[in-house]
């Protein structure tokens, strides 16, 4: 039995091919490689990803069956981490799914919040709301705050900024998201834009 990295990659090459093309093709069960009926990852599709902790850029493979994440582990073909992950990276599976200590069942991580919420002024609890309510509420507040504080000119120079709104964060997002957030914030005239690079 030869357990090289290559061997593993060949075994799953088809699955990778599937994951590469996922945006083009519908997710196809046929692309998954059945190995052994008892095998935990039997009939899973595999998608490559990059770790969400330090900036090492370690590759990971997310195995999915029937739309649910079955396993996350290092990508053995990734030249930086060669399949290895630190404790945080190795726990990425648990961001979504955990084994319930009480029942042994695999459940969605109950600590995660998956519904928009609002905490009203003076309230002691959160209130679950719809996305529409959340977006409408925020957009209204943004506009009101911006319009009330907007500075168009300062000493004859067109400055077009508001000092009253700040936006923090971005190192957790993908670059495309960073750009969209940046573009939105800057276009609103926001100066106070910062991210984790500042700490």
């Amino acid at each position: 039995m030869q357990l090289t990295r290559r061997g593993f990659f060949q075994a799953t090459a088809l699955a990778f091919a599937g994951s590469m093309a996922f945006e083009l093709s519908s997710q196809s069960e046929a692309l998954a490689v059945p190995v052994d009926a008892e095998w935990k990852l039997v009939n899973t599709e595999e998608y490559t990803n990059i770790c969400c902790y330090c900036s090492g850029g370690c590759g990971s493979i997310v195995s999915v069956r029937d739309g649910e994440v079955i396993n996350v582990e290092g990508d053995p073909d990734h030249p930086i981490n060669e399949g290895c992950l630190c404790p945080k990276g190795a726990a990425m599976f648990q961001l979504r799914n955990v084994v319930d200590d009480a029942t042994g069942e695999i459940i969605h991580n109950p600590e995660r919040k998956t519904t928009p919420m609002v905490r009203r002024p003076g309230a002691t609890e959160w209130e679950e709301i719809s996305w529409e309510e959340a977006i409408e509420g925020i957009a209204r507040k943004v506009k009101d705050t911006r319009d009330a504080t907007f500075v168009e000119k300062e000493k004859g120079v067109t400055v077009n900024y508001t000092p009253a709104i700040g936006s923090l964060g971005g190192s957790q997002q993908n670059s495309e998201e960073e750009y969209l957030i940046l573009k939105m914030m800057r276009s609103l005239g926001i100066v106070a834009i910062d991210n984790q690079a500042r700490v």
Partner: protein
Amino acid sequence: MAEGKAILYDASRCSACKGCQVACKCWNLLPSPMEKNTQAWNGSMQCPPDLDHRTRLIITFDEADNGKKYGINWAFGRRACMHCTDAACVMACPSGCLYHDEETGMVSFDRDKCIGCKYCVSACPFDVPRHIGGNGLFDAGAKINKCTGCIDRIKNGRSPACVTTCQPGALQFGDWEEMLAVAKERVEVLKAKGFESAQVYGEEQVGGTHVLHVLKYPLEQYELPENPQVSPLIGAMNWMKPILGVGAIALVGGLGLSFLTGVGYKRPEMRYDEANHDIINVETGEVVRHIDKEAGER
């Protein structure tokens, strides 16, 4: 000499990040405490402090003086199933739940077969096996939990989860002989660097273990027994079963013979005449025997 596969743990490369502990949990879907703040602080980086029913693998920490002005000898160790060739747990296991995987030499288990007797716990010279469930007096439903060597992964072309995840290459997986050679070579390098206590652990112990260690510092700094032994009683108990089988057959045979010799046995009905101290055949009325009380007969 052991054969098959081995996990090599090179303590001199281990960064004690515990990635292996976590990868083991995630691959094997082992739970962790979820009730708020239930874990106590034990004043050490070694968490949990020992193997427990949820935990098959821990990294151990030990601090010792290095005799220099700065720094210490900080030993990182690995504590998990050693996958012994002479595996006491397998010998002790009555249900065949624990077994040697022939191809790899890993000591794995079939959880469905575990009857929760915990004989493996007392047999293991490394104090490794733990059980999920079955706490309390009646101990119902306890199921073995220990490192399986991830033979599911091995059979499907991957290394064990702990090995796969190890960033510094402290954990390696391969043929036993090859891993031993790597370990020995590493010990030479360490000795050349001045780590005089560097040694291979697992080559000779209990028939050769399928987890080999390269130790950087003296053995006392690791939670490994100096001379792990399989208790002779474990072997003796295994001899007892055939003895019982043979004994039982012999006994039944003997008794059967005895029975046959007794078939057709009859004895006349007797009665006792306490006045004359005579035992009398009821049918014939004949005195069969006289108890001579005066002569001291009872």
